[in-house]
């Protein structure tokens, strides 16, 4: 897979931080606005895919499958750990909601402007799942993009 022209590469480099910021926003506000860990993670992974398409084989050094798979494992373990957090009561019990810890303040029923410091384990889980999805989708993209070696590239492309 070869990279694309200089114009595309420059635009991709310009857009990349915005895509990342937008994805992080969606993950962070998952419990308040439409979106959540999966959606935000997918947005970030699409940013990774954009870089892979624009830079081709040159991006292989920066977006490494090994690093992504470690991030994915950590995301999955964090999600499972958050689920195990409530095992004193039941598996998946939302221990932090309405407890006063970080993300633990309460909300009353009805419309409100949206308070970030709410949701209990939900924001933590959103972050865990977001990490997992961005790394998982990213590593699928990387694996599929670079599956053919340099020499095979010539005759199959």
């Amino acid at each position, binding site marked *: 897979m070869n990279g694309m022209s200089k114009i595309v590469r420059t635009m991709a480099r310009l857009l990349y931080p915005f895509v990342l910021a937008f994805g992080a926003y969606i993950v962070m506000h998952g419990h*308040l606005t*439409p979106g959540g860990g999966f959606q935000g993670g997918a947005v970030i992974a699409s940013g990774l895919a954009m870089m892979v398409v624009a830079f081709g084989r040159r991006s292989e050094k920066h977006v490494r499958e090994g690093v992504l798979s470690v991030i994915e494992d950590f995301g999955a373990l964090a999600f499972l750990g958050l689920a195990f957090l409530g095992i004193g009561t039941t598996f998946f019990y939302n221990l932090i909601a309405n407890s006063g810890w970080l993300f633990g303040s309460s909300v009353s029923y009805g*419309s409100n402007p949206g308070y970030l410091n709410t949701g209990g384990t939900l924001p933590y889980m959103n972050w865990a799942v977001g990490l997992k999805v961005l790394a998982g989708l990213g590593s699928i993209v990387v694996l599929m993009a670079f599956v053919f070696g340099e020499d095979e590239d010539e005759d199959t492309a």
Partner: protein
Amino acid sequence: MKILLDLPYISCALLIGFGVYAAIFKSNLIKIVIGLSLVERGVNLFLVSLGYREGARAPIFTYAPTENMVLPTPQALTLTSIVIGLATTALMLAFCIQVYRKHGTLESDRIARKLKEKSE
């Protein structure tokens, strides 16, 4: 008139029907994957349209009036099923890549012929 009101259900049926047709009668592996994706989209559309209430809004309380919201469960189910569909599609495409690497083609009858030649 009822037919027009139930248009989403009919489009689900069409999507699922065309998808199953492609998955069974096409010989190109990529087309089979496309067919299965179509089926999955049809089922997802069906799930999401089950939860619609007339004139209702999304079940999110941020800056929104609280009366008349659509059902949240079908949306959650659809979200789950979309991710599952994505995962299956990715894995099937990986198998397609591997088949292409091994046999140099994606036509199932040609692959079958090659395998037969090899075993003889």
